[in-house]
């Protein structure tokens, strides 16, 4: 049994390399030892026996969770889902974990306080990853919108023999008159041009 001051050996199972890197860094900074990181699809039965982790953090959407559950009938020191050892006050925390996409297993009886810090780090990193993903998606769509507007502007310049600035102003006026976004107007112009081409 590990005491509260000892570092925990942690196994990470996740298909997102960026997220796993974020988490590994944060756990190492907190003094834990990430024994290995695995993508889903591996034979967890063998790896868990081999690596002897104290805690397993696994993506809540990994189908391999059931493989971990299945180990309980096979061996005494089997992983047990963290959802079961939560004191009543921690139930909310488990819900946060599920919502963030984190599930966890403990092997043996590591100190609960240490497990909780691991869980908190995992939740925070998973949420951070989700935020980064959202920001990236927003940035991508903003970029895509700008590209549409540029292409539409080119079409207007060519068809109405306008300069760049005049074409842009014509588009902005049209969008304001119709009460639609510039990007929507741009798509409509491109679609119409494609149709007429």
């Amino acid at each position: 049994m590990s005491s509260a001051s000892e570092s925990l050996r942690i196994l990470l199972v996740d298909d997102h390399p960026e997220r796993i890197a974020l988490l590994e860094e944060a756990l190492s900074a907190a003094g834990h030892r990430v024994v290995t990181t695995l993508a889903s699809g591996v034979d967890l039965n063998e790896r868990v026996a081999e690596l002897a982790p104290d805690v397993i953090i696994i993506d809540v959407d990994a189908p391999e969770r059931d493989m971990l559950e299945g180990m309980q009938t096979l061996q005494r020191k089997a992983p047990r889902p963290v959802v079961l050892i939560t004191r009543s006050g921690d139930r909310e925390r488990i819900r946060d974990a599920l919502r963030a996409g984190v599930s966890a297993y403990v092997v043996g009886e590591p100190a609960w306080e240490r497990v909780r810090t691991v869980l908190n780090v995992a939740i925070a990193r998973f949420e951070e990853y989700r935020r980064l993903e959202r920001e990236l998606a927003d940035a991508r769509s903003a970029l895509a919108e700008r590209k549409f507007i540029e292409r539409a502007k080119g079409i207007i310049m060519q068809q109405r023999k306008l300069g760049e600035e005049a074409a842009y102003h014509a588009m902005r006026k049209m969008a304001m008159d119709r009460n639609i976004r510039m990007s929507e107007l741009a798509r409509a112009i491109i679609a119409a041009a494609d149709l007429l081409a």
Partner: protein
Amino acid sequence: MSATPAERLDRRVADSDAPELPVVRLGYVPLTDCAPLAVAAELGLGARHGIRIVTQPEPSWATLRDRLLCGEIDAAHCLYGLVYDVQLGLLGVQRDMAILMTLNRNGQAITVDNHLLEQGVRDGESLARWLRRSPPSTWAHTFPTGTHALWLYYWLAAHGIDPLDDVRTLTVPPPQMAARMAQQTMQGYCAGEPWSALGVYTGVGFTIATSQSIWPDHPEKVLACTRAFSERHPQTARALVMTLLEAARHADEPANHEEVARILVNCGYVQANVDQILPRLCGHYHDGRGSRWRDPHPISFHAGGTTNYPYTSDGLWFLSQFHRWGMLPDRIDFEATVQAVNQTAIYGEAASALGIPLPDSPMRSSVLMDGVRWNGDTPRESAEAFPVRARPLPAGHSAPD
């Protein structure tokens, strides 16, 4: 104009009957037998009963369980045995649970690696002979306390094979079964459809036994929720059972089977093709080595309600088999456990409101593949009468409690 006292009373009675929740969130695992939930949600069958059904896929039984226990979903399509596992805390997680109705009977199978054909394995008997002269083999099921583990154990044991000693068993996610068997890391698996059919259709394995050949008309998936949910929302629970009874009745009609398969595929419930789901849904089997048959006990979702009633004897069978395999702590009151979990009263109200008949008795009688009659009597003694079972612990040791 103000309402008369009688009208006010009417309204109050009507209001008191209304479901407490307008939306019911249901979790399911992608399998052919989640059809009643899919049909209920996609055909909007809850509207007549004052609820809207929203479904969400769950990537594993563990995540389905955790979301149920944390209240992220209200009820779920669930392996029969898993509900009792949580009720008794067999894998450590204990919560009072409720089974609202049985969702289906039959329709699972055991599939064996085609390589074993070359070594003379055709059926249970030849498999038992092969096992005696071969290195240890590996067999997969879908959850340690689930139905597939118990069908696999029962079938192996009926051929004199001890599932705890003579083979290695492990849990594998059903969509990965055929691929793992193709890599020869396991020799056979027991799973639901379409993942059993897929092993055959992709040429990896053959069907050595259907679950209905182990126990004709066995209970399989149930509609489960926590007891706290059904107690806090009795009207919602009843409306949910009524909705799913109508969905199950619809899904059971042979004329609707193609529509059901299309809903499962086109609405994203099961990542497979219609022609991988439809044949076995209709009871058309081929075993992958030349045998074709029309199954006398195909998957059943309703059968006039006999499929759906949460029989006490069905629940007792799972506890009896858990006891057989050494999974139960001592001093479990089998009957009290089943009576607390299987919500026959809620089911009775829902079925009666729809004019669906109730059985005369909460016990039913069946004969399983090994000739053993099961009627729910003496579940503990019946388990101990099997020649193949977990060896009792030596005196002085007790099972965990």
